């Protein structure tokens, strides 16, 4: 008798879907800001020549799209960002892995990189201009430098965070060091590398603006400075919105790649551990108490 399971006293637990309320939560702040923008113009707290109405900005965007002007600038900026991102991130990963693995390489390059890191990257601009002139090369190198640093630093940290006990498995089973590197160390440092790649992309977007503000005849940064000098805040805002969109989309893309490549991880961010996240939040809110 004592060995028979008893199922009395367990009411059905219901699982509530969280998403409608979450969507509202996500939209609340942007909608509020939009309302504030509109309201501020209505009450004439700001003038339209300082801050044009949302509808005006939308119209400007539309017009620029129709004329193909926006596409031209977007393509220029994306091309520049991607080229220099690859130029910075690829060597950063390779050098980061090398210095994470080899203390000698690390001792050789790390102090220099730390020194470069101590200089705010925009301080290099005059030097780059002197060396390379106001050309595409100077721009690309500046952006690449911006992307390089976070990728390198996070890659080194990623390699260092690899569990020593897993490396021991490879050594105990007599795997060659190439296998230990590629099958244990590299996958183990992937979380760090991907974090670096994401923040490196963020830096690349930042530096592309800087580079295009300083000297360019096309690109969204040029659109910004052009809008400023021609007193067209609507064009400035249109460029800013486009930047927000591009930055968000590229980061979401990388985040999706990251989620896929790290799907083995057992963290709160892993997709199929969402039940755990949910049960955590419902325990906290005690909204799943079942009354017999």
């Amino acid at each position, binding site marked *: 008798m004592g060995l028979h399971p008893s199922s009395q006293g367990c009411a059905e637990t219901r699982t509530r879907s969280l998403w409608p309320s979450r969507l509202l939560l996500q939209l609340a702040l942007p909608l509020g800001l939009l309302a504030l923008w509109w309201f501020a113009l209505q009450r004439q707290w700001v003038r339209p020549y300082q801050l044009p109405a949302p509808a005006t900005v939308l119209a400007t965007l539309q017009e620029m799209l129709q004329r193909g002007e926006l596409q031209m600038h977007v393509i220029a900026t994306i091309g520049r960002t991607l080229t220099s991102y690859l130029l910075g991130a690829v060597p950063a990963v390779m050098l980061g892995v090398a210095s994470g693995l080899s203390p000698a390489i690390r001792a050789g390059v790390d102090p220099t990189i730390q020194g470069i890191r101590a200089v705010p990257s925009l301080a290099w601009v005059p030097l780059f201009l002197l060396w390379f002139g106001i050309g595409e090369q100077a721009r690309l190198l500046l952006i690449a430098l911006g992307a390089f640093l976070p990728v390198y630093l996070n890659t080194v940290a990623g390699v260092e965070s690899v569990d020593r*006990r897993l490396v021991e498995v490879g050594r*105990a*089973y*007599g795997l060659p060091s190439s296998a230990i590197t590629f099958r*244990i160390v590299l*996958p183990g440092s992937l979380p760090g590398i991907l974090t670096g790649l994401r923040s490196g992309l963020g830096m690349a977007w930042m530096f592309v603006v800087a580079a295009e503000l300083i000297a360019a005849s096309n690109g969204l940064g040029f659109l910004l400075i052009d809008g400023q000098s021609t007193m067209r805040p609507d064009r400035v805002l249109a460029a800013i919105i486009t930047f927000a969109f591009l930055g968000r989309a590229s980061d979401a893309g990388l985040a999706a790649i990251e989620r896929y490549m790290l799907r083995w*991880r057992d963290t709160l961010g*892993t997709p199929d551990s969402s039940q755990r996240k949910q049960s955590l939040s419902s325990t906290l809110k005690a909204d799943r108490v079942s009354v017999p």
Partner: protein
Amino acid sequence: MNGASVAVCNLGIALTSRPILSKVSFEVSPGEILAVIGPSGIGKSTLLRALAGLVSAREGDVSVRNGAERGRIAVVFQEPRLLPWLRVADNVAFVLQGPRQQRKGRASAALASVRLQDSEGAWPRQLSGGMAQRAALARALATAPHLLLLDEPFASVDALTRMELQEYVAALWREHEFTVVLVTHDIDEALYLADRILVLGGDPASVHAELEVPIPRPRSRTNPQMLALREPLLRTLAETLSPPTP
């Protein structure tokens, strides 16, 4: 003969400059099963790591003959140590040598023999503690080792599964005659599997006692000889536990 032979001579090991093992000497002959017991924290895992070549000796030396070449030593660590980014089958296959298809086949067979055929495609995080430990055992056995180093490999499974796995290791051992060094807390396990039992004691630890287990195989768990050996073994183990300092 598939078994490696091991000779440990006056081995001394210090970790972060604290001496853990000192003047440890013993030999394991090819095809022998040696159990190592001793109180927690005494240095059993450290000794096993030294046999696997993972820590270097401060004094003395460790030599493994007929097992030194690549992939002839297999280790089951105290924790499963599965690579979290490889699915269970790949965790077994990645330590094997040979063409990919063949490695996969051997991995599947090894997993099936520890009853994990349904978890081949799972991520390690989806396994229970005991399942992960069984996968680690499968990884070790799939390599057809000459020297098998086991660090409390059955500590996290239920009593029945533990017996089943012990019998499985014993059966494989009868067939392939590899050499085994088994660290365990379970005296019955030591008596059931081992030819000889080494008791570690002292600080730094050395071989406190050595006990032959002259029981014919296949052994039965209720063998009266085994029960008779239990008593002296427990007494020896008790001696190694120094009285608690106030």
